[in-house]
């Protein structure tokens, strides 16, 4: 019998991280677009700032992977 709790837990860990990243990037992206419109020289900095929330989804992925290893 497969334990569905483990893949569901992994899915939640990854999915919530991705959602958090999406919300954060939408706000940062909008603000970044506004800043670049006025100051094009900040483009490089904005790319970095938009990328920072990616850590959330990466951490979610790592946790999900660790959970999935339990299945093996």
């Amino acid at each position, binding site marked *: 019998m497969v334990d569905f709790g483990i893949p569901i837990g992994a899915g939640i860990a990854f999915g919530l991280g991705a959602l958090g990243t999406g919300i954060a990037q939408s706000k*940062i992206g909008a603000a970044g677009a506004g*800043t670049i419109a*006025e*100051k094009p020289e900040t483009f490089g900095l904005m790319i970095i700032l938009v990328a920072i929330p990616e850590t959330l989804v990466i951490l979610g992925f790592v946790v999900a992977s660790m959970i999935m290893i339990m299945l093996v």
Partner: protein
Amino acid sequence: MEYAYVNARIRAMKSRLLGRPFLEQLINKPDVDSIIADLERTSYREELERAGVQFSGINRVEVAIRNDLIRAFRAILGFIKGGEEENLLTLILQRWDVQNIKTILRGKKIHAPASEILDCLIPAGELGEAALTELVKQPDVKAIIDLLATWGVPYARPLTRNFKEYSETRDMLVLEYAIDTFYFEHALSTLKSRDTEDNRIIREMLVTEIDINNLRTVFRVIRDRMDREDAKKFFMKGSSELDTETLYSMVKAGTLEGALKLLEPTSYRFLSGIPQEYVSAEKISAFEKELDRYLVRKGISQFLGDPLSIAIPIGYIWAKYAEVTNIRIIARCKQSGVPDKELREALINV
């Protein structure tokens, strides 16, 4: 509306505003031409070049900074176009319509030349430069009110209603009070419809303006020894801190010292810091200047408010207004050879 985008843009625009060191640099310049040379290295360059086609010297600076201010305000309105926020910001920009109409009426009453009246206007509201020029061309106060009514401008209503009283007394305060009351009542009633953080911010700014207008009236009534009962009808309602009763008791105090004592428990206690010689000489221009500075400071301090609210556009509007006013003061003082010490005192220090 996406405040993250709009406010980031406005903050970027704010970073281009000229700081205190640059203003000091302008103060140290010997004449208007060297001020223009310095300003040409800033964001004013484009407008200075345009104005340079028709004007030179002080007029070039005046026209350029005025057009730059209008362009900045129009840009902000463009960012937030279509939303509820546009209506809120328009409420604040309409104060310049009221100010312009009052300036034109005052100018016409004292038969000031059209060019002088136009120099004092800031077409940042809904009445653009063309409309204001047409108003200035009118021969008298009655013709201005009639033209506003023909255009369907709402401010014509309070002016028409009170014109009879004005023509009997020839007191401009009657018309000024009528238009101010109309503007503030309309703005505050618009804000009542929703109880949001944005509405609260705009209401706070409007109430501060009401307080400042009322305090100006109190100081003038005391200085001119006007009838105390008459004064009561010129107080505008809307503020809880300085209600009609408090203002009336200030008038009853009879002296500026007495009125200032009554302001001690309020946020206007800073007026007590005005030098005693101005108070004894009843030089209320010093009080008015201090109140103007307070309003500008309060507007600019909105930058410290919620970064995802209308506080940021409001803060920028006041910061830009302060900058343009300061440049105008510096250029005019340099033109007329005012000493640097007096020039620094005249600036809006923010």
